């Protein structure tokens, strides 16, 4: 155990001093600080600027009215909406690039609601324009004109202004405001990214460390000083502690930033992350790291060189990246079969669960199955990793064949 701690201490300290590690650890909070500064300095303007990038408000729209419900246009829309007598002229104007969006309102609009939206091939924002609030208001206002009083008409245009109220642990309502809801989405997302970054850096250092020890031949001195299991355990422990320290630093600085933000932007201060959620993230971080760490250690030992070890390890990394490929599905429906399967599959479980925890109430049995499977995978990888590690350590210039790996695994 003393030697395990020695190796752990050595790995922790030498990697802590790496310029790459220091840069990355500081980079994340600095980025947050810069973002915060921009937002608070530019105030609301920044948000508007962002909205304008996509929002179509103010873009002129051409239309052809076959239903007769929208002719002539109400005066307040006269500026934005240009009416064309027929489709042919309107589409010609589109082709000549005089117009960007042409709406053709069907004759049976009242029954079908059909509006054909024409735009040029490249016009992503034109398509957005056809589905915008402006177009909705235009349609609504013409339909109800003279039939209802103006306040009702106005409400009809914008019928919903949600005030989210969440019940806290004591069941008392607390208004965190829209920001709270947004943070509820963003925080698990950011946390899962940090989680995967940390898992990858720690296990990457592990891989790199073993690769260098093999390349520099110091490995023969090591295995004649301590057992390969001690060596592997020490490395995993030391780098795991380093990764955890990094996450802790990020979380604490994030907390500080958030406090700063609530001061600067006068946001409601309650953090939409609960204590169990933080606890679970730590569990998933540790298990995820152990899984990837042991696999990377084995990969590093098996490769004939650092580079080859990294190639082998790349296969495992794919598994961790899976949830990010499916992220839109998970966001859209955090309880879909795909999301559940991904949170069971050990390689993708840590990230997927992090995301889902922020998005939805994950049933307890799913948490149980997912952690159980992850623990099982960790145990298998520790067991197999230690064996393969020993086999790979002393093979220089020669690749371990699958048969040799298999034989090493069977020799209990």
């Amino acid at each position, binding site marked *: 155990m003393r030697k395990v701690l020695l190796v752990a201490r050595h790995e922790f300290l030498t990697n802590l001093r790496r310029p790459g590690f220091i840069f990355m650890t500081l980079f994340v909070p600095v980025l947050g600080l810069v973002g915060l500064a921009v937002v608070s300095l530019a105030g609301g303007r920044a948000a508007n600027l962002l909205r304008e990038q996509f929002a179509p408000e103010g873009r002129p729209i051409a239309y052809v009215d076959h239903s007769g419900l929208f002719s002539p246009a109400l005066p307040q829309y006269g500026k934005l909406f240009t009416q064309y007598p027929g489709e042919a002229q309107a589409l010609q104007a589109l082709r000549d690039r005089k117009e960007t969006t042409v709406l053709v309102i069907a004759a049976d609009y009242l029954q079908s609601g059909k509006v054909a939206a024409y735009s040029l091939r490249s016009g992503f924002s034109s398509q957005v324009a056809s589905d915008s609030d402006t177009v909705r208001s235009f349609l609504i206002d013409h339909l109800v004109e003279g039939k209802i009083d103006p306040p009702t008409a106005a409400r009809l245009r914008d019928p919903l202004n949600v005030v989210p109220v969440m019940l806290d642990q004591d069941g008392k309502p607390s208004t965190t405001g829209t920001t709270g809801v947004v943070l509820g989405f963003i925080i698990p997302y950011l946390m899962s990214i940090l989680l995967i970054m940390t898992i990858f850096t720690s296990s990457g250092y592990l891989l790199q460390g073993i690769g260098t020890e093999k390349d520099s*031949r110091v490995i023969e001195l090591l295995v004649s000083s301590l057992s390969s299991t001690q060596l592997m355990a020490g490395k995993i422990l030391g780098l795991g502690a380093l990764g955890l320290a990094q996450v802790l630093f990020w979380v604490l600085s994030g907390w500080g930033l958030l406090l700063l933000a609530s001061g600067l932007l006068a946001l409601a201060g309650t953090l939409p992350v609960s204590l169990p959620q933080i606890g679970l993230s730590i569990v998933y971080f540790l298990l995820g790291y152990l899984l990837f760490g042991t696999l990377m250690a084995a990969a590093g030992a098996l490769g004939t060189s650092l580079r080859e070890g990294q190639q082998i390890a790349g296969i495992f990394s794919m598994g961790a990246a899976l949830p990010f490929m499916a992220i839109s599905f998970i966001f859209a429906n955090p309880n879909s079969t795909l999301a559940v399967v991904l949170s069971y599959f050990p390689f993708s479980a840590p990230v997927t669960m992090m995301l889902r925890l922020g998005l939805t109430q994950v049933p307890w049995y799913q948490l149980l199955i997912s952690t159980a499977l992850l623990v099982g995978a960790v145990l298998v990888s520790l067991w197999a990793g230690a064996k393969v590690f020993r086999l790979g350590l002393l093979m220089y210039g020669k690749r371990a064949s699958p048969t040799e790996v298999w034989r090493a695994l069977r020799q209990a």
Partner: protein
Amino acid sequence: MQTIRINNLVKCYADLCAVDNLSFEVQAGEIFGLLGPNGAGKTSTIRMIMDIIRPDSGSIEIMGQPPSLRTMERIGYMPEERGLYPDLKLLECLVYLAELKGMPRSRARARALDLLRRVDLSGYAGQKVRALSKGMQQKVQFIVTIMHEPELVILDEPFQGLDPVNTELIKAMIVELKHQNVSVVMSSHLMNQVEQMCDRILLVDHGQAKLYGPLHEIKARYGRRTVLVELSNGELFPGHLQGVLRVTRSGNQYEIVLAEDGSPASVLEQLVAARAPIARFEIGSMPLDQIFISVVAEHGKTSSVPADKEHRA
């Protein structure tokens, strides 16, 4: 008590046996030479002693115990494949590796500084290992080996890559270890380089022992088998001599290897009878590699497997 006792050690790979029924002992406080050509099985033997690879059969005892992590702490090992942490500072590297061998940190620090002073590297203690020259790294490698005050030091090809000055420095330090009653095992394929230091040797070839025993005995046994003759005119060497196996000429000097039935006296008699102008007549001490060659020649080819590559686990 013997420091190392090895009995009928065998290690075979798919196509050949690197170590084939080898038995030998290393006494406390002696310098033991494990000699033989490349691929003879020296490194495989050492790796089995160090518990890096496991023997197929046979037994190894180190200080009365089978090899284990506990015995490893009492051994200093310099592998054939040298290696240090290139990105660590020299002092840190030495201390870390000694700590792994069980030495407390503060003592390791003091000893590292002391040893660095001995080999003229104190100025480099704070430098990164990769900044050192190759020769310096070799010296550091030797320091790593003896850092934790081992009772047994195993050096695989210790003088490989060292210049003559540093070779002498390391040789002096090895002799000093012997005076401190540390057992030293040196392997080398350059037999002449280590022979004058060794108390006893084991000559291996194709994984088998060819010669084993105290060096002076072996020398005495084979040394009388050569005669060195110098003539004032080399052309006057007699064409045929009785009881002679082989004659090698270099200028006016002749190295005569005696046959089983020959003797230095009979050669001298024959030279005098032939009126050869003798300037020098010397009963030779045969260099170890010559002894090796003649032993292999006598035994004949015992194995047909080429030994051109050293086998690794």
